């Protein structure tokens, strides 16, 4: 026990030393570069990839140009009625060509209807995939992005944008809760193609992305869906589809941007009932009815997942740090409606 503890500390110290080494060696190392113009590398998305808040951009994260490598770390906090999410991540940009990223989500789900049922079922001694008042989810996201062609910044005499493709592998660790919410898979990959261009005459960056995915709420509530009968094989489906995403950022000063985003979401869980212990609620309606809670089964029907919208302000006082505050309009999340709330993010660039 003691030994494991010291080992863990050693590991941490190793990481700290490595980071310190990176930071101090940075100024002299040949491969190190931070030559991009302010804000042109984008900020930190909830997927870990460089881009806006939710939408990946074709830009490669970090301040490196084609002459070197740059690393960054990001932290994001999201607070809407149905969930509070903390995201921590890192990404590295290589020669303005390749980006590798990792992000870790820690999310608490606040579905009060679900809590009521969980409480009830706990009382009745039926195990569910959710504990009352404590529905936490964890998800890891690994990503890679490759710039194919184009220059988002300087080709002002052509309509050709910068275009990149990316892949994300998402691993949700909260299997029971994901299945309670009617999703099929807890792990899945996504692919996207993004096109970005800055239009200097109107001081505006436009990014359009198409994502091939089966995610529910970017994977936080799993991928695909299962029929609202018993969770047997065959009635589950996690086919991917193409969904669109747009970011528009208007630069009001060289270090400040305001803008908006739209991210299309699917409707895998539309009309699906929350499932408890592998059963949808119709099976326990009797129990609920017998104790006078029949109306609950209605409120446990999930709504069509809302597209995500946000308006944001990004501020980069220098090349080492940027801040983003945003107002989110995430619509329906599972059984909860009108999820409007706040978003704060900071991106540290080394």
């Amino acid at each position, binding site marked *: 026990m003691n030994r494991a503890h010291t080992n863990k500390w050693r590991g941490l110290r190793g990481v700290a030393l490595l980071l310190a080494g990176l930071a101090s060696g940075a100024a002299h190392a040949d491969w190190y570069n931070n030559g991009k*113009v302010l804000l042109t590398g984008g900020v930190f998305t909830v997927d870990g990839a460089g881009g806006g808040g939710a939408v990946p951009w074709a830009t490669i994260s970090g301040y490196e140009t084609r*002459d070197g490598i740059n690393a960054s770390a990001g932290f994001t906090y999201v607070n809407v009625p149905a969930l509070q999410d903390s995201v921590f991540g890192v990404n590295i940009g290589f020669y303005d060509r390749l980006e590798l990223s990792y992000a870790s989500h820690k999310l608490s789900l606040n579905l009060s209807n679900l809590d009521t049922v969980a409480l009830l079922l706990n009382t009745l001694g039926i195990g569910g995939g959710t504990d009352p008042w404590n529905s936490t989810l964890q998800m890891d996201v690994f990503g890679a992005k490759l710039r194919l062609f184009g220059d988002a910044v300087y080709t002002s005499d052509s309509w050709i944008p910068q275009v990149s493709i990316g892949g994300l592998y998402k691993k949700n660790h909260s299997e029971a809760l994901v299945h309670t919410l009617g999703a099929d898979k807890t792990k899945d990959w996504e692919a996207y193609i993004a096109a970005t261009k800055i239009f*200097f005459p109107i001081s505006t960056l436009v990014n359009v992305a198409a994502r091939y995915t089966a995610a529910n709420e970017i994977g936080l509530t799993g991928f695909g869906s299962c029929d609202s009968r018993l969770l047997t094989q065959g009635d589950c489906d996690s086919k991917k589809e193409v969904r669109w995403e747009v970011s528009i950022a208007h630069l009001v000063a060289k270090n400040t941007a305001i803008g908006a985003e739209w991210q299309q979401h699917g409707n895998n869980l539309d009309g699906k009932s929350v499932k408890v212990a592998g059963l949808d609620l119709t099976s326990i309606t009797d129990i609920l009815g017998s104790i006078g809670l029949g109306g609950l089964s209605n409120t446990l029907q999930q709504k069509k997942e809302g597209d995500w919208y946000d308006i944001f302000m990004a501020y980069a006082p220098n090349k080492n740090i940027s801040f983003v505050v945003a107002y989110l309009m995430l619509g329906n999340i599972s059984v909860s409606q009108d999820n409007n709330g706040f978003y704060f993010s900071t991106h540290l660039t080394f």
Partner: protein
Amino acid sequence: MKVSKAKLAIAAGTALMIASLQPAFAAEQKTKPILGIPSSAVASFGGEYGVHNWVESLFYYIMLDNRINYIFKEFGNVERQIALNTQLEQMVLGAKVEYQGASMSAAHADLGITMTQFNAVVEAAYNACERNQIPYYSCNHLIAALAPFTRVIVTK
């Protein structure tokens, strides 16, 4: 390092020679940004005088930046460059001014300029705009008008 600098000096010298052989007009063309440049662009810089002041500020910031100032000290001629840039910037912003210097490719092709160095000049350009009280949006018109030169200026 020494060798490559010597090579660069020869190269830059050659570039200058080629430049001086070219006819004074038509050495560099006006760029064509896709969304155009408003006709008020030069005026928003404060006319010819304002553009000249901006170029002076630009070189002031360039010479403060250790990432690039040595290149200008070694291969540049700041006075000549200020005069020529004043012409060039007015031309790309739409004024009827004749640019009498070398083409951007002839002037820079052999300097081995990197994207990082180019961006450093762009940062100096924004600093110069701020210092000269030129609105950010007007500054971006100039960036839009000069950006296409990246292709021939950045050779590394």
